[in-house]
């Protein structure tokens, strides 16, 4: 399926306005959300006009009660202020006399009070400095001035007026308590609530485990002590002051955990910046500002490896600051820095490229392009690892420029512009001999010439990935793996290298994609050392080929992860044979293998994606 047709299909669905699912549901039952809202507003208005609800003061003038009410609820939440409560009590009686200007004055007073409150300070901190103070205060004021349903009552302890809610507590000697007194009455109130939550969490446990299995991150038995500690720490990160005594790898684990929970911000960043450190890995910089990045360079002068994910605020001025410091990075991994301009990239590579050994640029769509790549050959003599992922600007010209960087050992490209296979061939001819990693993601147009070039030029390859090719043929794969001088590979990923003929999906007369013979040749060449194999959706590999590759006398001792999802011919017998031939296999993915129905899974192994109701299987029977 081409990208274009996918886009067209999405467009054809029509654009929906902002309407909630609930509204849709109600509409289908002939209930109008708008009508409900109008009713609610009418009720609220009625409540405003009659805040006591007792019916005694129904005839009372309503003009002033709005502000009365606001004052009462505002003070109830913040501080006990006898003057204002008294005033509001009196005001209620003389409501008719309160003029409009006085009302505004009162409102102003409440807003002043809100500004001094904790809630306001907190909200201000959250929203940053951009918002106007008055706007925030007014927003809180309006929140509070909306009268709650229910009666007004005097608190049994402090005698203050307050609104009764379902949560109001009873006083020991009868009567009700305002929220403040209720809270003071029982300070341990928080604890039982927490416990109740934990009991509920048990229900989601199974789902959580299933999700972990899918992430390839599941181990039976207890978590490690370190993981438990880190999880506790992440929950209470606001209590931590510094992590000085911990080992760097522990700190890195904490950083990962925090980022996963999106807890990394300006405050928690300080925990990870240590003057003596050489590495700073930030896995989620979405909440960091430009100043925070500058702080990294200030606090860690000996920085050598920098990795920043979601680095939205990594802009030109930060690069300027980095250029002005005596920091020579050996590894620079930048993810999502879309605002960094091409000229700054050039400046960086020219000035700091000398020491650079590893450069990885992810999801910086427009500004990192051919020009930057063409500088690598001259500016970065020590570069051995290059990764350009999800890039919309790099074209064939850039790939040709990479071929001039003789020191490269690891290349990983995931480009959006089409690059002719000939360019990859010339790249492999130029620097293929030294390559250990060669990864091309989503390359629909690459053909057998690339495979032949790998066969002819690469001798030290360990990791090979070519995905989504729609042209390569089985014969090409056979040629690649037969009599190849390269040692057995450790990692192979040929995901979705298959025939894509919409009209006749089953027949594959030209043997396009990785089919039976290619798979057999692959296993014969690399099986001995292979650790991870992905042949996802290579659906023309026959059952016979699988049975031959995993026959009784074959053993693949190192294979840990095997992905054969959507290989249609896989049967129960093949899955059993795989478990027999791969003693150290941990995970086998069989999504969409409809012939897999009932398999015995040996202890400690994972079979993921059974197409039956059983779902994922983790078995410990045998």
């Amino acid at each position: 399926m081409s990208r274009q047709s996918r886009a067209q299909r999405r467009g054809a669905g029509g654009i929906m306005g902002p309407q909630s699912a609930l509204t849709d549901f109600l509409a289908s039952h002939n209930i109008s959300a708008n009508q409900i809202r109008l009713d609610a507003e009418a009720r609220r208005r009625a409540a405003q006009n009659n805040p006591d609800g007792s019916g005694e003061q129904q005839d009372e003038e309503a003009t002033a009660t709005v502000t009365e009410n606001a004052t009462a609820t505002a003070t109830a939440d913040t501080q006990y202020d006898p003057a204002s409560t008294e005033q509001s009590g009196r005001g209620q009686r003389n409501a008719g006399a309160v003029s409009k200007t006085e009302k505004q004055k009162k409102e102003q007073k409440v807003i002043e009070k809100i500004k001094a409150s904790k809630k306001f300070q907190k909200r201000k901190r959250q929203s940053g400095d951009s918002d106007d103070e008055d706007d925030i205060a007014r927003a809180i004021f309006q929140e509070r001035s909306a009268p709650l349903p229910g009666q007004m009552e005097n608190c049994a302890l402090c005698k203050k007026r307050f609104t009764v809610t379902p949560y109001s507590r009873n006083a020991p000697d009868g009567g009700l308590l305002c929220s403040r007194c209720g809270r003071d009455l029982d300070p341990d109130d928080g604890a039982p609530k927490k416990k109740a939550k934990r009991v509920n969490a048990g229900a989601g446990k199974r789902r959580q485990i299933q999700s972990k299995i899918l992430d390839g991150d599941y181990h039976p038995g207890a978590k490690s002590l370190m993981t438990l500690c880190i999880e506790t720490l992440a929950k209470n990160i606001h209590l931590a002051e510094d992590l000085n005594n911990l080992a760097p790898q522990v700190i890195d684990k904490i950083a990962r955990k925090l980022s996963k929970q999106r807890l990394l911000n300006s405050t928690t960043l300080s925990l990870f910046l240590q003057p003596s450190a050489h590495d700073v890995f930030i896995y989620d910089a979405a909440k960091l500002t430009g100043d925070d990045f500058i702080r990294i360079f200030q606090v860690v002068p000996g920085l050598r490896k920098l990795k920043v994910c979601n680095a939205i605020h990594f802009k030109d001025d930060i690069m300027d600051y980095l250029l002005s410091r005596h920091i020579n990075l050996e590894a620079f991994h930048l993810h999502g820095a879309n605002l960094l301009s091409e000229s700054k990239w050039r400046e960086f590579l020219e000035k700091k490229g000398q020491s650079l050994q590893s450069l990885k640029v992810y999801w910086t769509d427009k500004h990192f392009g051919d020009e930057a790549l063409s500088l690598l050959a001259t500016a970065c003599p020590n570069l051995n690892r290059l990764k350009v992922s999800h890039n919309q600007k790099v074209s064939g010209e850039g790939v040709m420029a990479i071929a001039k960087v003789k020191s490269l050992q690891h290349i990983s490209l995931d480009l959006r512009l089409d690059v002719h296979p000939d360019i990859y061939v010339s790249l492999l001819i130029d620097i293929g001999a030294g390559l250990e990693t060669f990864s091309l993601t989503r390359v629909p147009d690459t053909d057998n010439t690339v495979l032949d070039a790998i066969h002819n030029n690469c001798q030290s390859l360990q990791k090979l990935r070519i995905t989504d090719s729609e042209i390569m043929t089985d014969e090409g794969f056979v040629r690649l793996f037969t009599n190849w001088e390269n040692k057995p590979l450790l990692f192979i990923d040929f995901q979705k290298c298959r025939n894509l003929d919409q009209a006749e999906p089953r027949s594959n007369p030209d043997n396009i994609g990785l089919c039976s013979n290619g798979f057999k040749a692959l296993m014969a060449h690399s099986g001995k050392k292979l650790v991870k194999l992905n042949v996802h959706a290579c659906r023309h590999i026959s059952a016979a080929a699988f049975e031959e590759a995993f026959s009784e006398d074959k053993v693949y001792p190192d294979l840990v992860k095997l992905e054969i999802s959507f290989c249609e011919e896989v049967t129960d017998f093949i899955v059993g044979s795989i478990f027999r031939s791969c003693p150290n296999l941990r995970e086998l993915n069989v999504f969409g293998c409809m012939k897999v129905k009932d398999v015995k899974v040996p202890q400690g192994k994972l079979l993921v994606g059974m197409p039956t109701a059983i779902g994922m299987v983790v078995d410990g029977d045998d």
Partner: protein
Amino acid sequence: MATNSDGARNTKYVTMISGDGFEFVVLREACLLSPTIKGMLRGSFSEAKTGRCVFPEITGPVLEKVVEYLYYYHKNVNVPYVPDMEIPVELCLVLLEAADYFQLDKQMT
């Protein structure tokens, strides 16, 4: 507990002693989960001979928690759904250090 040369090698229990003098008698099998202790109990170290491991830089409460963890892990080997052990917040950071020291950072299979 045996204290003479080879007598302690195959005892069922090992004594762990904290820096401030607390002693914990722990199932040897549970102790061996920690590569650090496993190393101490091997070969001709005095710990291996006497079956007594002293950890001068670890305090009683922390060692208690570590021992609790060792038993918790031992009890739950290959159990699919294991509830998390409660870690007191105030011990969190020291326990992290201890976990690093005892090399309890990987999931054993």
